[in-house]
């Protein structure tokens, strides 16, 4: 069963203050079985850039992504890698325009100082052609890799327009997890929430419960996702799920208003609600302290 924890509760439970967060609440103790390759490191999560969007919710839609790239490049300590958790581009029915947007997006993020960049599709990138164009630019949407003692898994829940992971990918996930120790540090990247956050707003994955069931035996799993255009933290059992802010427009808190319409742009506070996060992986710790950054410094 999923339970929501608000920001204050989360900070209290995790023992952090200010803008720094930690995940892996049940796994705050040091881990056993550490390999010699483990080291502290940072990664940065950016999400929902929606390149190609235009409209009143963001009058600077053609410039926000570049500002985010500049903001990441200006971080005093550069991350080991950067991950984009989907909706790189805004959807279009035109396949040529979709590829144009994907290409422009790739060029813009090519300006990042860090060259180890991981991508994932969102439904806006992949659901109208089952991920065909996305794959041409960024390769397979499902993959796993290891980095300094952490096992990372990217799950695609958008190439199916019905928001299913699908049996084939679930078998792949089960196989990949089968190679991991039960106390391995595992981070899952996905676009949609794997749990039913707000089904009436399509904030769910149709067969996400199956993925969570596969993850449950592992004691130190953390999920980072996008889709809902806001910071959000929720537990399913011992697994924390952290949603990231968007880089185009914020959406309302789940259930806070009848419809999930974008929050209006406020000229007095431009870029409010937009941003990215830096995540720290500390040797021997299951938790992942997070620091949220705005697109533009106040």
């Amino acid at each position, binding site marked *: 069963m999923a339970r929501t924890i608000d920001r204050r509760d989360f900070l209290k439970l995790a023992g952090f203050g200010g803008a720094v967060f930690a995940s892996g609440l049940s796994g705050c103790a040091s881990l056993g079985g550490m390999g010699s390759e483990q080291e502290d490191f940072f990664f940065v999560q950016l999400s929902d850039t929606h390149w190609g969007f235009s409209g009143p919710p963001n009058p600077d839609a053609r410039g926000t992504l570049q500002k985010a790239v500049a903001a990441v490049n200006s971080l005093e300590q550069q991350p080991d890698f950067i991950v984009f958790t989907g909706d790189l581009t*805004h*959807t279009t*029915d035109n396949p040529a325009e979709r590829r144009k947007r994907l290409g422009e997006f790739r060029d813009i993020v090519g300006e990042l100082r860090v060259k180890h960049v991981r991508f994932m599709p969102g439904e806006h990138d992949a*659901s*109208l052609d089952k991920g065909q164009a996305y794959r041409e630019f960024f390769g397979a949407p499902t993959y796993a890799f290891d980095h300094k003692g952490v096992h990372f898994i990217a799950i695609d829940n958008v190439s199916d*327009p*019905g928001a299913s992971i699908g049996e084939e990918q679930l078998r792949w996930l089960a196989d990949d997890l089968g190679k991991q120790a039960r106390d391995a540090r595992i981070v899952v990247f996905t676009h949609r929430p794997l749990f039913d956050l707000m089904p*009436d707003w*399509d904030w769910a994955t149709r067969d996400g419960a199956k993925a969570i069931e596969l993850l449950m035996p592992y004691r130190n799993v953390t999920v980072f996702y996008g889709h809902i255009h806001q910071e959000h933290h929720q537990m399913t059992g011992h697994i924390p799920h952290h949603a990231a802010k968007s880089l185009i427009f914020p959406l309302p808190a789940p259930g806070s208003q009848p419809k999930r319409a974008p929050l209006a742009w406020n000229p007095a506070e431009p870029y409010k609600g937009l941003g990215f996060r830096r995540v720290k992986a500390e040797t021997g710790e299951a938790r992942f302290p997070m620091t949220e950054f705005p697109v533009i410094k106040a």
Partner: protein
Amino acid sequence: MRAGGRRRWLARVGKGLLAAGLLGAGGYAATQPVERVIRISTRKFEFTPSEITLTKNEPVILEFTATDDLMGFKSAGLGVRMDIVPGKVTRLRLVPDRVGKFMFYCDVFCGDGHEEMDGTITVVETGA
């Protein structure tokens, strides 16, 4: 079998087949529907109608047609979902068992505007 008994038997069989999703449009018409049918068409990015009123405990058949693309119909509050396939009539039998407003939406991503493709089923008390 007497004529009246045969009609009742056919109606019972027809309802059973309909509930099991085994009856096509022609067969359904032949059995004289006893349940209200609400026809809903879909196209990018709307349901027509998008506001539907039902009565608590009254069985209805929601009859969907898609005019352009594959769509989905989901109401988490009512616990139902269907794919709506172009060129095919899709039926969903529904017996709402509680009063209230229940949102429904397209849960098959269909393009720019998909997020606004939704509607509301209002269930009112019997006799209201």
